[in-house]
């Protein structure tokens, strides 16, 4: 699976090298067992795989979650080794994770969070006017009501609202790497289209996207350059967009059966 010329000349945004990840509270339990992945600027990579295969663990480890331990391997962001950086250092560099299960933060409004996050990222408080204009535009792109931003972060949000709120933050923070962990789940068809269109509008040639999903559905709206299948902590297949369609029509089983045979054959 060689990469095309246009891909290899653009800047690598995310490079994951032979990454092994365990659970911090249960160090004997390794979830990610050697993942290699490179996302270049401008690209969208879809990471698919059945529930429990380790997609969220990989995403959280890339973002620096203290709930996980990196046993070996490295994570590079725009050429820099970020494996040992704190989550906030990674965030300030321009890495962004849209959480599968965004945490409620009672008492903290979205506006307040956004202001402080932008201040942290840019090193200075945005002017109130500039901030409001940006906020309004982003809300509009995502077809979100203005008073949404005055609510407490993820507190009492419906599943769909949480996902939109994540993309709202993506739009305001303008990262160069966006990891979208099941941003499509819990959304009805209309909301899915809105969110997907929002992501497309926010995507720019300098940004790489790692789109985690276990349905092909969202890939009808956001066209991936590459598709990877994660199973039991390893990427067991990579391919072009057609791989997603294969999964859509046949599920994971045929792929895994095929691989099971292949793995057994290789071992014997």
């Amino acid at each position, binding site marked *: 699976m060689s990469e095309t010329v246009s891909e290899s000349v653009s800047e690598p945004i995310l490079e994951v090298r032979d990454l092994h990840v365990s659970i911090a509270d249960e160090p004997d339990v390794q979830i990610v067992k050697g993942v290699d992945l490179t996302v270049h600027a401008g690209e969208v990579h879809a990471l698919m795989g059945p529930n429990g295969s380790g997609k969220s663990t990989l995403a959280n480890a890339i973002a620096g979650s203290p*709930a996980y331990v990196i046993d070996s391997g490295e994570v590079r962001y725009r050429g820099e080794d970020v494996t040992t950086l704190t989550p*906030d250092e990674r965030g300030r560099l321009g890495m962004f*994770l849209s959480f599968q299960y965004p*945490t409620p*933060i009672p008492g903290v409004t979205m506006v307040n969070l956004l202001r*402080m*996050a932008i201040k*942290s990222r840019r090193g200075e408080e945005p002017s109130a006017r500039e901030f409001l204009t940006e906020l309004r535009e982003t809300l509009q792109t995502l077809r979100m009501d203005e008073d949404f931003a005055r609510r407490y972060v993820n507190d009492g949000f419906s599943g769909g609202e949480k996902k939109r709120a994540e993309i709202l933050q993506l739009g305001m923070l303008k990262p160069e790497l966006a990891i979208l962990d099941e941003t499509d789940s819990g959304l009805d068809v209309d909301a899915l289209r809105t969110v997907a269109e929002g992501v497309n509008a926010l995507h720019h040639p300098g940004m790489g996207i790692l789109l985690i999903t276990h349905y092909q559905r969202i890939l009808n709206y956001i066209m991936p350059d590459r598709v990877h299948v994660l199973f039991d902590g390893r990427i067991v297949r990579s391919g072009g967009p057609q791989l997603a369609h294969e999964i859509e029509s046949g599920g994971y089983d045929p792929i895994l059966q095929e691989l099971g045979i292949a793995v057994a054959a290789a071992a014997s």
Partner: protein
Amino acid sequence: MSESTTAVAPLHAEQAVLAAAVQRGEPEWLLERRAEAARAFAALPLPTPALRPWRYTDVTRLDLAAFVPADTPIAIEGGADGDAPDGDAYVGTLSGALEGRRALVAERLGALVPATEGKFIAANAALWSGGALVHAPAGHAFDEPIIVTVDAGELADAAVHPRLLIEAGEQSELTVVLRTRSGDAPLLAAGVVEIDVAQAARVRLLIDDRWGAATRDFTTIRARLGRDADLRVASLAIGGAILKQTVEVVLEGEGANSSIRAVALGDGDQHFDFVTLQDHVGPRSISDVEVKAALAGASRSIYYGITRVGEDAAGAEANQQNRNLLLSNSSKADSDPVLEILTADVIRCGHAATVGPVDQDALFYLQSRGLDRRTALQLLVSGFFQSVARDLAVEGMADDLERTVFAKLARAVL
């Protein structure tokens, strides 16, 4: 018993108390009460940890003689002027009301909090000076908050005795803000606040504690609520070495409604101790207590609260919550909410207590957005306090709390 009874310092003795009162020109009836209070003070022991409300705040070794009773510096702004033409409304010092409001003060002062009840209360009754009286006659509404400031910034090794008497007549409305400040020198404060909320009256009391680092404050606040009366107390505990605040509400009238909210933000060796009582006497009375502490450094918070629902309080609703956020490894919190239900006919009676570190998922979430750990904690704590801050309807107070959280946690040991 004899061990915990301290020798009476000369200035707490009956003779000295009376001499000071005479010098202030106080009327005869008050002199008698001063003498009685001084005798109670001499007779009463300091509370010991054997008493449940004092279990975690041991004052038996507090040397009261080390704190010289001083005039309590008190400033009162807002509301109407004392003796304004608007009916009988009064806002001013208690000492200034001894003549003009003699009947009211003589009847109500010490009615809810009798001088003989405890050591610190007796000290206050014997030694309060200045004081504040807020009286809203029936139907009177003070449009502006009344700000009572106790600023002991100039005092050292002194004892002050803030005394507030709040009388809200039927269907009246008022808001009092009590601000307390002091310098870095050792100071003892023994305060008493009495609040009478008559039928359908609405009273808010906001307590903004910014005592200096070596102040020890032991204050009792007690309120009686008539039918359909409404009382909201919101307390911010920011300063001081020891802050022990007892807030007791007797919901006497049918449909009376009270809310007690407090937040404490601790660092260093600060010690906060809240005691609450929601005493439901009247039927269909409603009460709500929410005490929240965020603790950095080696600070500590104690909560002991009783919800009592009496035999006649059918249809009562009560809620009692204490939440403690430990921001450091050496901070500590003890929590003990108690229910005493004497009627079967209670609509809802809940209590909850939590002690624990900040939600690690929330911390990671904020950090992933680029906020460093300290900033993320500042934001989480100000969010945590939001449920109380919402109640601080006095202009600027909620914003001020947020600024204070950020400023204090900028230096705190987390």
